[in-house]
């Protein structure tokens, strides 16, 4: 069974290149031409990735549970 149940997307138009996500979860994000890019689109559940998404000042990172389709970050409210 594929354990990579989370999908990670970065809206590169919204991204301001703050570097928050790369510093928070260096195994999941990298800066490419000044803007963030996920190192893999499908990952195993990882609390640090969720923290990185919540820490993005422009909420450019979306984390989704592939099985349920539920958005895990950013928070809805």
């Amino acid at each position, binding site marked *: 069974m594929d354990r990579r149940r989370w999908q990670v997307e970065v809206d590169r138009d919204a991204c301001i*290149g*703050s*570097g*928050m996500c*790369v*510093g*928070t979860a*260096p195994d999941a994000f990298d*800066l490419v031409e*000044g803007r963030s890019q996920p190192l893999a689109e499908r990952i195993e559940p990882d609390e*640090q990735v969720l*923290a990185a998404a*919540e*820490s*993005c*000042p*422009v*909420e450019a990172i979306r984390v989704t549970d592939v099985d349920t389709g539920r958005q895990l970050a*950013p*928070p809805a409210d």
Partner: protein
Amino acid sequence: MDTGVAAQSLAYPFGNGRGLDLEEQYARLRDTPGLARVRLPYGDDCWLATRYADVRLVLGDSRFSRQMAVGPAVPRTTPQQPGAGGILNLDPPDHTRVRRPATKAFTTRRVELLRESTRRIAERLVDEMIEYGSPVDLVEHYALPLPVSVICDLLGVPYADRADFRTWSDAFLSTTLLPPETVGDYAGKLWAYMGELVARRRVAPAEDLITAMVQVRDEAGDLQEQELVQLLAGLLVAGHETTASQLPNFVYALDRHRDQWELLRQQPELVPRAVEELMRWVPLGVSASFPRYAKEDLMVGDHLVQAGEPVLASIGSANRDERVFARPNEIDITRGDNPHLGFGHGVHHCLGAQLARMELQEGLAALARRLPTLHVAVAEEELAWKDGMLVRGFRELPVSW
């Protein structure tokens, strides 16, 4: 490769921070291979990064640590030793744990909800300035009350207490302004004050960030009470001091580049770009501060930094790097692509960046709209610059219109 053998260390900081002109040594160092070796008033000698790419690497790479910056050897401009803890002195995952509960309140989406009320405050303050009559002190009558009102409202701190927390705030920005024992005394008083507000919200919740953070701590339980109180106190200080310094800096810079002020006045849609450009151009920090320690040997550009060595990264210098910015020493409020590091970079990227942007935009827009002839009312040699603080800015700035 630069072997890292130290030539003679340069005395640092390069200037006293009175004025917004970036010290000329930085331009020379940006064109010198490797990192510079500098000697600060206190602590060990250390490396100084001045080029954009190097500065961004030092600030953003997780092989560099802020948490290791403890003890008397830390290179610094102030006699007091850096305190442990606090989000500026932590690395992930501790840093993430402490900062995370506050992040949600400072996203663009949340900040936009405060834009209308911020605009109204700016308008009211301009009304009061007009009523008071020119000249007035822009710091006291505009630049301070604007962000203080916004952050008080957001956090749930009584605006009436501002004289007290304004005084205590200096403890967190003083390099040599206050003696170390006063720094300790003021910091303690601000923490006690915030501790009291936290205790009150626990009994009587309100619609504010203090209440929200108290609830996060009490429900999740992975934040110490002291961490919560110090985080909130930090938000109160950082939430007004920086904007209060930058607004007068911006007005002064635009007055000295009058064509840019005229352009802004005629094309108010340029306000967001103007704020980014002024964040780039104004070297807010008197010098690079908050050194990062290498956790392992690593290359910064062509220079090998060894494990355990501290490195300072000059944001002011990075923002003038011609490898990234065309005509870097000019103020051009039409500049489009502007990846400046004025809010820092990496995990310590300013938590309030989006709030500060919005306040600076609304603050500048209201002045340009209502006071088109606004200008600095005193001669260059009479300007009252702050002294002995981490940031450049005015103690007061008389303006006329």
